[in-house]
């Protein structure tokens, strides 16, 4: 192979590193998007037998969101292998124990079960908060846009912003809004 051909191949199969902020995101909704990048489905060179997937670094996995009653209703099954060894852990409990586990399981179960699944999963790096090692951050060259916009909470507004906010009515002076 000529020298140019060699570096062309190297450039074509270079692995990119993507950043994904999981705050306020539903892991079950995110997993198809994450899978696309992990397997390289977005690339024109994609083939199931070609190893062309990218790395994805997920941050803030502690702040994921489940809709409705999911935290209480969703149970994660585990069996130790011994008789009577089955356990069903509610999602909130599992998330308390390991904040990266629910996201990892969501991506893992979304992918088709074959011999490549565990290899692909090795390229998913999940961090519970935004403290990512420097050498990992230096690799990152792209950010995956969040699927849901993060709403602004009432507590995040400053006092000035609240005062400037347009009002429809003026409350009477003796009207109690909150206890403190």
């Amino acid at each position, binding site marked *: 192979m*000529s*020298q*140019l*051909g060699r*570096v*062309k191949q*190297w*450039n074509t199969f*270079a*692995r*990119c*590193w993507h950043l994904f902020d999981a705050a306020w995101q539903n892991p079950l909704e995110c997993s198809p998007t994450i899978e696309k990048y992990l397997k390289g489905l977005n690339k024109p060179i994609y083939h199931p037998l070609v190893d062309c997937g990218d*790395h994805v670094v997920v941050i803030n996995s502690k702040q994921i969101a489940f809709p409705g009653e999911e935290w209480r209703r969703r149970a994660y099954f585990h069996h130790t292998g011994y008789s009577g060894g089955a356990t069903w852990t509610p999602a909130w409990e599992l998330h308390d124990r390991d904040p990266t586990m629910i996201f990892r399981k969501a991506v893992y179960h979304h992918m088709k079960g074959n011999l490549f699944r565990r290899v692909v999963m090795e390229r998913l790096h999940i961090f519970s908060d935004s403290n990512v090692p420097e*050498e*990992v951050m*230096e*690799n990152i*060259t792209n950010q995956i846009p969040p699927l849901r916009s993060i709403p602004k909470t009432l507590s995040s507004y400053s006092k000035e912003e609240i005062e400037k906010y347009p009002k429809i009515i003026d409350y009477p002076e003796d009207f109690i809004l909150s206890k403190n």
Partner: protein
Amino acid sequence: MLTLRTTNRVLKVLKTAQKCEQSFHRWLAPTLRELKRRKDIQGPEKPVHRKTFLEWNYDTEIYAFSKRLGEEFNNDLLQQALTERSYIIREEERQKNVGIEQPTLNLSDNKELVSKGSDFIDDIVKRYLRTVLPRLPEEGIIGIHKYLTSIETLSHVSFHIGTSELILCAEFPVEKPTLSNVLKSIIAALIESSGDSRAALFVRDFIITQIADKDLHQFWEPEEPIKLLSEILARDGIQSPEPRLIGCSGKNTILACFRVGLYTPDNKRMIGLGFGETVDIAHEMAARDSLRQLFGTLDNILLPFNLKLDQLCASSVKNLFLNEWSQKTLPFRPTHFELRQAKEISSN
């Protein structure tokens, strides 16, 4: 002993087969096994020349060969082109062994034709390359010419147009130098039978097309490309280019990939792009890319393989050598796009 035992077993099987009627041949599998064993002991079959077959007709084969190529050959010349010196010597020896004092063979060998054909191929290949690659330095032309006229390339062409069984020579299977010599002599025979222009088309179609899908810089790679590029640009009055890192992925991993662009300092124009596993390799590849652009040998160029003899430049014309190469002193010659267009207009 083993053979005897096996044969006994076969005979036994045959006997039992006669006695009671079976629905299948019980002797078949042992017989095939025995035949296979004997064949394995013999070893692999040696290749035999086609002429040892009964219905081999050499004259017909030669006639069919010229028709297959679509050329008009003088039959005697073609016969001479396919005859090697070694064959004549061997035949004379054979006749002497039989007892003939003065062996007579109405054959002449292809020695003269080989040298004539070799000169013709050299001339046409160089003229073609200089016509279609006017910006490539003479060193590059020599490198590509060396590849096209090497024994490897010529013997490959010669073998695949089917000369290997028609050649009259002492050795079998035919060796590569012989195959390449015969191709040269066939071209010389074609010059004498149908003329220069027809032979030039033959060289173009069979030999020059061997570079069609190849990267031209694999035959000639300029050494120290970064230094060379700045020297060439200095001759044109451009300052040496400034390398910039324009992209990298997976910087801290073993699969890191860097992209380096070369920019001219005065008008900030990108003149080359390279990539590689380290910044140094990417820088060197960027310089090579820039040289490719200057020399007009990018890997996506389409060479015009439709040129005729009269469209090629003269034999005396030479490209610039590397130590004097600059865009200002580049001779004016039509590019291949213009050559292609000229061809299309003339055909319409």
